[in-house]
């Protein structure tokens, strides 16, 4: 751990405030994306599970359920994708 601390201080010494900010932003980018996946992951799992149940109960309504399921996935997934865009923005901009 002591070597790590030395390395970090050496890095800090070499960097200006702006560089510090971009490095920490790059670190938080991963965290931001990881957090952004949680909700949509649960949401899509629940949504697809319920849809499969609905299709199993009423196979004749499977087409309608599938269409609605894809719509729901599209809306839920948008949150994860906005998280991904934030990741790109933090990491590369």
């Amino acid at each position, binding site marked *: 751990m002591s070597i790590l601390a030395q390395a970090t201080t050496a890095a800090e010494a070499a960097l200006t405030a702006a560089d510090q900010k971009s490095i920490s932003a790059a670190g938080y980018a991963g965290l931001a994306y990881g957090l952004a996946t949680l909700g949509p992951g649960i949401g899509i799992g629940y949504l697809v599970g319920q849809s499969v149940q609905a299709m199993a109960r009423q196979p004749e309504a499977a087409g*309608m359920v599938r269409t609605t399921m894809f719509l729901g996935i599209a809306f839920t997934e948008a949150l994860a994708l906005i998280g991904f865009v934030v990741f790109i923005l933090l990491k590369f901009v």
Partner: protein
Amino acid sequence: MIFGLEFPPIENLVEWPNLFGPTDSWYGFNKIALINLVALVATAVLFLLAGRRKTLEPVTNAPKGSRNLVESAVGFIRDGIIVETIGPDGLRYLPFLASLFFFILITNIFEVIPFFHMPGNARMAGPAVLALLTWVYFIAVGIKHQGLKYFWNSVAPAGVPKALLPLVVPIELLSTFIVRPFSLAVRLFANMLAGHILLVTFTVLCITLWGASLLLAVLPFSFLMLVGLTGFEIMVAFLQAYIFTILASVYIGSSMHAEH
């Protein structure tokens, strides 16, 4: 740099030099534009092949080859998307939605086509244009069907108490006219960019592992992952084209009739 793994900067993954036209000009023709052109030409050629007189006669023959492919796709858009979301009234929007579907599908599928390996929609330009056109289109459909009352009908759903209107109207205004096109564009763009970065990551990993001595043992897993993800990305390319088209269809359908 981890074990000599050097991930290229993102500009190298998605920004392409112009094939002709000066850099930063408004008409610079680069790889993305080429992919869009190919999407246009490929769709047109496919439809023309399918619509040749020779394959059309007689009408009772079962469709074969290109005609079968195109008829399946058009039938899917017609029955699986339009009739499901708008109803039989929506069949007049078939040309727009079919163009959307084929354009997005073919620009997406370039993600896995050798020598291109770049989804055209991993740049914001394509999705933004398509989402803007969809936005204009569904507003135009709304005005055509409901007149200028369309704007009021779409921001104030029927059955909402008058006291809640100050709360509901801004939310609906935001969700209908701002979030809809934005989420359409971002969904397509981010899906394709994420897939592209995923494939690039595993490709870079494979290339790097090829040289490293001890880590060569991990290479097969990495390569299998790359193969599997390629198949997954083909599915995603199709799914995103489907979702963009079905959402455009839902938006157009909601513009045709006042919500009740």
